[in-house]
């Protein structure tokens, strides 16, 4: 699996965990089953990390927290992204 595909898989998992309590519970109880049921594909390392999430880790995970982080980083990452679009 490519790095990009892995990122998008995990991103989609996190986005759903924020808005879907049942899915969040399922990830905490049995991530492999929850991911499989949802059709998500993540890397072995990402699965290992998800397996070790605890309920208290996710208490602060709210749409507001994610929005805050993304809004603050939106401008500052532009330059980095732009510079990555160079020829090899």
């Amino acid at each position: 699996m490519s790095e990009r595909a892995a990122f998008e898989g995990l991103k989609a998992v996190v986005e759903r965990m924020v808005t879907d309590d049942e899915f969040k519970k399922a990830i905490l109880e049995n991530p492999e089953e929850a991911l499989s049921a949802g059709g998500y594909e993540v890397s072995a390392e990402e699965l290992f990390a998800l397996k070790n999430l605890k309920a208290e880790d996710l208490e602060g995970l709210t749409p507001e927290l994610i929005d805050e982080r993304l809004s603050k980083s939106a401008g500052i990452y532009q330059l980095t992204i732009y510079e990555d679009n160079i020829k090899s």
Partner: protein
Amino acid sequence: MKKPFFQTRLAFTLTPRCNLHCRHCLADASPAWSSNAALELDMPLRDLQRWIDEVASSQKVHTISFTGGEPFLVYDNLVDGVSRAAQRGLATTVLTNAYWASSIKRARAYLSPLQALGTLKISTDEFHQEFVPLAWVKNATQAATELGIQVRIKFCYLENQEGKLAALERQLGNLISNEQINAEPVYRLGRAIRELKADQFVKGDLDQPCAVANVPIVQPDGSVYACCGPTFDGQNPLLLGNLGRRSLPEVLDASETNVILHFLRLWGPFRLWKLLCSEYSDSLKSLKLDTTSMCSLCSGLMTNHVTKMLLVKKAQDPSLTRQTAVQRLLLLQEATMLARLNANNVLRFEGGASPII
């Protein structure tokens, strides 16, 4: 938003020397460094070659930036480094002041051996133009374009200088597009602290995550720092290691568990400062740090002996470590730190090789 891939770019400081003495230089580079003794401060070619090979083998970094000082002062090493990196499939950029492009003929002569170069990034603004006229920048831009090398312009500005950027865009308009000009404020660091007045600097939003710390930089002596900011004062939490003791992939890999580095990437220096203040208010109540910009504040945090000591202490806090690892997974979709936290049960501080006191 695209993911800001961590450490996919890496910079080499080929030399700390510069032929210019710009008033705003955050690296404090200067011709005063150009004595014979200072030549020993250049990155040895054999080390550069070995480190490029290590980077290529790591399969993590895809772009190498060559910087300084002024990297064209060590021209033979620059040409060797660019060629070697390109042969190994790495994209390359060089940051220069274009002093070598006093005519289009000279510009072509300097750039022809660098045809493998991906991007030529040229610094020009009121400070550089005290030494290097814009006509030379145009020569370099034209020659690079002829050779198929992309050009970026790095323009630094002070408060209320929007007009200068617009003027530069007009002056270069027939050679490059406005999107190729990267404008950034002058940071109140290095020589700029001494040469410019405090109210000339653009006051930036302090409360932002740091993107610069995605790009580590290798100094000529083999020290690897998490960013190009002026924290090259030996031991501090952004010193990732030294290539005399470990290979480049090992140093980069170890930085995956550097709590302070990743806190900065997640939330930035302002929140780190607030965190320290909330927990160590007695130790910090009389300390004043420069809050002109994120970089100024971060530099203060990393160089003040009290804050450095507190940061080392904080980096060993299991709660902050876990919180940082979890937030990397959830907010940046980076799993390595949390995976290792669980594999090793506890993370240890991966800053410098010896205690930071």
